[in-house]
């Protein structure tokens, strides 16, 4: 089973500064959905940047199937907090960009881009410009762009943070479906406990100063939704509420444990 693995990873900017992350070990297999939550300053985004290969760890290893990660790579696709789309390209060309960069012929990449646009519910919107879309639509374009490259790992940095609650709920269901169809391993950075609890097979709680893992919760609500259960019923189950409360408690735990 291919996996993206962070082993005993630390990250600090300068020797005097407190580590942003300290001794973090995290494993992401294909077919898993791992969410990372924690207060601001706990190093959530740094964790994603390490996994994406945007920054190198100060200590420890980042590996894919045992091979060290030295930078970004096509097997990992990233969805950004601000959509990071290119306003000078039409929607379809934004989605097709990873394929263009990989040198895939125009006809084929447009066909594949159209397929993923349809998958995120934006069929027929490819000719528009980015500024003609709503915030939720833009994020869906960002997700389609990430999936076009057929990544083995989908890394998402608070992609839904700027969306309203109703759009978020729709996006959750979409994300789960896309995760299932793409057979990718998903890593989601979020500050929504509910979102993490609903989507994930595993939720990792980070605490700040230094950023470290303080709690891990294994869950199956996302899988049960994909098996056909009703999302609102799932979210009002005692098991869901209990999991949410445990995660909240882990986030807000006083620093006495140290």
């Amino acid at each position, binding site marked *: 089973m291919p996996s993206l693995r962070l082993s005993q990873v630390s990250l600090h900017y300068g020797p005097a500064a407190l580590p942003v992350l300290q001794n973090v070990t995290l494993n992401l297999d294909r077919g898993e959905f791992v969410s990372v939550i924690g207060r601001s300053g706990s190093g959530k985004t740094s964790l994603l940047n390490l996994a994406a290969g945007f920054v190198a760890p100060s200590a420890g290893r980042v590996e894919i199937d045992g091979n060290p990660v030295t930078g970004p790579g096509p097997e990992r696709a990233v969805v*950004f907090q*601000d959509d990071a789309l290119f306003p000078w390209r039409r929607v379809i060309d934004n989605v097709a960009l990873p394929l263009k960069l990989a040198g895939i012929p125009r006809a084929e990449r447009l066909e594949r881009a159209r397929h993923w646009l349809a998958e995120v519910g934006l069929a027929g919107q490819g000719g528009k410009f980015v500024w003609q879309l709503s915030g939720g639509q833009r994020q869906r374009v960002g997700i389609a762009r990430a999936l076009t490259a057929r990544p083995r790992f989908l890394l998402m940095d608070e992609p839904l943070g700027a969306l309203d609650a109703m759009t978020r709920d729709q996006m959750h269901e979409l994300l789960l479906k896309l995760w299932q169809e793409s057979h990718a391993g998903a890593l989601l950075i979020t500050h929504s406990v509910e979102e993490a609890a609903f989507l994930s097979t595993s939720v990792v709680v980070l605490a700040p100063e230094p950023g470290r893992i303080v709690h891990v919760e294994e869950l199956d609500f996302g899988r049960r939704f994909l098996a056909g259960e009703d999302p609102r019923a799932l979210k009002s189950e005692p098991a869901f509420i209990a999991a949410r409360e445990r995660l909240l408690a882990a986030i807000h735990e006083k620093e006495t444990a140290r």
Partner: protein
Amino acid sequence: MTDIPLEQPQAEPAARRRLPWGALIGVATIAALVGLWALATVLGWASPVFLPSPARVWAALGRAATDGYANATLWAHMGASLWRVFTALFFTLLVGIPAGLLIATSRIGRGILDPLVEFIRPLPPLAYLPLIIIWFGIGEPSKVLVIAIAMLAPIVISTASGVRAATESQIRAARAFGATRGQMITEVMLPAALPSILTGIRIALGAGWTTLVAAELVAATRGLGYMIQSAAQFLVTDMVIAGILVISALATISELALRLVERRFLPWIGRA
């Protein structure tokens, strides 16, 4: 109760009002200035040698267009000047955009090019014109070169600062999707810099038209600047003013054309 039907008719004039006010005020300002000019000549505030009437300037324009002035028709002068300005722009873009990219993306590039651009930027064209002529002669290349030097700094600086319009996450996205260094430039940095480069072209064209007369000071036989100078030597002020108005009209037309290009082909500018 009657409030409700009133709402819709109120909303419509707002859309209608957007259309021509700016342009109308502009036309009115120009009309007022021409009126004042005509009034000044009619009332004899200045000698016709210093300030010929609008009608005489118009007549001079007609004369230059049909009979020609200073060895060539107005059209030939215009053609020569336009050719010089746009050839200079072409070569400036060819050199200036890569230079701006180097400044923005490479520390070595910035180290080498930044001081050079800052050296060239404040130089008045009349100051380096003699040197250009000593080095490159009095032919056409010298004239184009003088204009190109005046245009270079705005293009380089606008490109370099435009590249910074690409956001950190846009650059990371391109990296994550496997962009090579070359693709990063063609797919992200240049498009991100385009709005700024267009502004640079506008400023550069302004500098180009300003420098035109200086470039045509020496050994030119065609060109609007040459026409103006020939007229000035014989105190033919109506022709001088006619030449100035033609330059101004050409500059305005090229500015409007740039705006049209921007709206037509780069509709995303300012809406990211």
